[in-house]
């Protein structure tokens, strides 16, 4: 018993904050479904999808996964590696554009005559 008494009681948060985040996630999911329902196209569609996606991901990580309340030592170890993923995305965008160009040029145009 002594051991358990010595441990600090982990602080919990009011239930309201979880219910708020929960509600917001529902609303954001509904909005992103509406993007498809109304068949928005082009830049409007892509930007709306990305905005709702990042808002949802941010809310889940910050409040459901408690990152908002964690110490920076943990938060930074988790978030900085994401920049590597961003770099990888940029590399692969360049790669797929080149592949697409090659396919169109050699399979459809017929290459250099």
């Amino acid at each position, binding site marked *: 018993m002594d051991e358990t008494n010595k441990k600090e009681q982990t602080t*919990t948060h009011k239930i309201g904050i979880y219910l708020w985040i929960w509600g917001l996630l529902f609303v954001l999911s509904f909005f992103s479904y509406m993007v498809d329902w109304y068949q928005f196209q082009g830049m409007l569609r892509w930007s709306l999808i990305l905005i709702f996606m990042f808002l949802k991901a941010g809310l889940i990580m910050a409040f*459901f*996964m408690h990152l908002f309340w964690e110490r920076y030592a*943990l938060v930074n170890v988790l978030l900085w590696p994401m920049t590597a993923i961003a770099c990888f995305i940029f590399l692969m965008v360049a790669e*797929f554009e080149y592949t*697409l160009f090659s396919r169109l040029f050699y399979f459809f145009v017929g290459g250099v005559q």
Partner: protein
Amino acid sequence: MSNPKIEGYQFKPGFRGMADDTASDQTMFKGVHWGKAMMWIFLLSDTFVFSCFLISYMKGRGSTPVEWPNASEVFGLHVFGVEVPLLLIAIMTFVLITSSGTMALAVKYGYEKNRKMCGWLILATAIGGLIFVGMQAFEWSKLISEGVRPWENPFGAAQFGSFFFMITGFHGTHVSIGVIFLFIYAYKTFAGHYDEGKRGWFTTMKGDYVEIEILGLYWHFVDLVWVFIFAFFYLW
């Protein structure tokens, strides 16, 4: 949530605190249970796995000159004579968010040592996950019966099937594993293992409600991945 204070010592907040924690020649994640730190490291590596899948999907879809299948038609459902786009996927999304919310509340009630409430909420989370997997199985069998294969499909670019089965399959596996653990933890919570500090099956670690938070991290991560799959695979 890490404790800002351990044995009377108050930690500094912000980046100054981060510098202190990292340079302290001691444990770096202060006030964070080792199991939780390990779960975060695992989730970080899992993030890279899912990122590689989604990036390869981006590359495959971007580099094909063939028309990509229209997701809102492929995943549409025929309900009461009306064609509703993406209906099943929308329901799956809402089910997963609901189960994520019940899990967040289970963690909170666990830390408040409210055994019954915590157990019921974990059970609700498990059932939500089970419904999700069930609907995914329905979706898979529907697409397979329509002739979607990893190497071909009747809707457009052949790569569609392989990316679909790989990405949703890997995510579904994560959900299934999560459901199994949720049921185990629901049992352990109801049995009072976390109140008595009973040791687990494969560990000498004493039972503690922090385990519910660790399980919760995994479950929220599964929901997090679905947010990205929903955006990139189904909506894009």
